[in-house]
């Protein structure tokens, strides 16, 4: 590649993915409104499919630029680090708002729900059954993902693959159990502010678990495809940070909504 400048920064080549992903975001949001109002989900489905496509193509390009073209110099990885950290901070703020909503409604329960929390005739989940298992699963996945990271840094390929695989399995297990819980729930999102706060907070958390699991799974694929070096594996580090964030959010969810909130 001919260099026109002598600097370590990565000036990316022209790409259609920012446009396709922003169009997909528009289709998804409009489609969601259409689904809610006139019960037609086609635009939403189109938006979701095109978003998945745009995201995979964009991230595939980034993997290629970094691992295969060698464009990720030290300055570039520093920038990526900052980017991921700031993104996770924005996600923390996102969840902060749902916790605010929960505490707003639960600390000073209105007459309409019986001036108590949980509201009258609401059966919460027993925090010492599946939710406790879910907590153990996520904590264990935090251990396995740290194991994977140390294995990579210490040049232990098979152990790193194994540990990362275990993390992904635990992530899938969490999602499956949470899905079962949702199915078995005695209340729905429409059941007073309890249902709203519960399902919006845990629902978004579940979505983040799925995203985090996918990110870790893709990192495992890249590890098996020899994209990573023992001292340069920014994609995996970003996935690990995200996973720890997901874990911490669950701990807050568990202690406040599942435990205190019962």
């Amino acid at each position, binding site marked *: 590649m001919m260099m026109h400048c002598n600097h*370590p920064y990565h000036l990316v080549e022209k790409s259609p993915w920012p446009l396709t992903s922003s169009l997909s975001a528009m289709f998804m949001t409009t489609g969601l409104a259409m689904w809610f109002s006139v019960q037609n989900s086609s635009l939403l489905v189109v938006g979701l499919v095109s978003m998945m496509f745009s995201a995979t193509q964009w991230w595939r390009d980034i993997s290629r630029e970094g691992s295969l073209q060698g464009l990720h110099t030290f300055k570039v990885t520093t920038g990526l680090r900052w980017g991921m950290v700031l993104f996770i901070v924005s996600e923390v703020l996102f969840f902060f708002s749902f916790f605010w909503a929960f505490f707003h409604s639960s600390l000073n329960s209105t007459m309409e729900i019986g001036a108590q929390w949980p509201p009258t005739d609401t059966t919460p989940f027993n925090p010492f059954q599946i939710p406790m298992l879910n907590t153990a699963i996520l904590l264990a996945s935090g251990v396995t993902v740290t194991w994977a990271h140390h294995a990579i840094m210490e040049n232990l390929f098979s152990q790193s693959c194994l540990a990362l695989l275990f993390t992904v399995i635990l992530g899938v297990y969490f999602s499956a159990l949470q899905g079962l819980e949702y199915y078995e729930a005695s209340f729905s999102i429409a059941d007073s502010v309890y249902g709203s706060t519960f399902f919006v907070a845990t629902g978004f958390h579940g979505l983040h678990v799925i995203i985090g699991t996918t990110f870790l799974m893709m990192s495992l694929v890249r590890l098996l495809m020899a994209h990573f070096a023992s001292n340069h594996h920014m994609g995996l580090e970003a996935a690990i940070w995200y996973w720890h964030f997901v874990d911490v959010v669950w701990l807050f969810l568990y202690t406040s909504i599942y435990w205190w909130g019962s």
Partner: protein
Amino acid sequence: NITFNKQIMASLTARTVLRTSVRCLHSSNRCAEKALPTSATHATGLERRELDAIAAGNDNPFDMRIIKRLSGATREKPTEIPSAFEKRIMGCVCEEGSTHINWMWLDRGVSKRCECGHWFNLIKSTPVSEM
């Protein structure tokens, strides 16, 4: 109690799956020989050249570091600014702590004087892509 049994089944399944996978992966020798490279051997392209330059002792391969002016730089003995190209923008901070930067283009081979009296010229340095 149905929920309680499901919980036991769930944890038992998990433990069995984990133990079986550990057994399977331990007995397979395919991955055992593979080792992870360091970026010294794994890197390519610009990243590789940056690493090679640093390994060779050049910790400023892109000429990005702030350069301290020679005290009393004159036309005969200007402060030398490295660049891989024929011209480069440079900013002179005339006094320590000054909030104004005097930006100027420097051309190779032509000495230039900043208004504060210091002289600069551009000298050739190897770009990282050719190191």
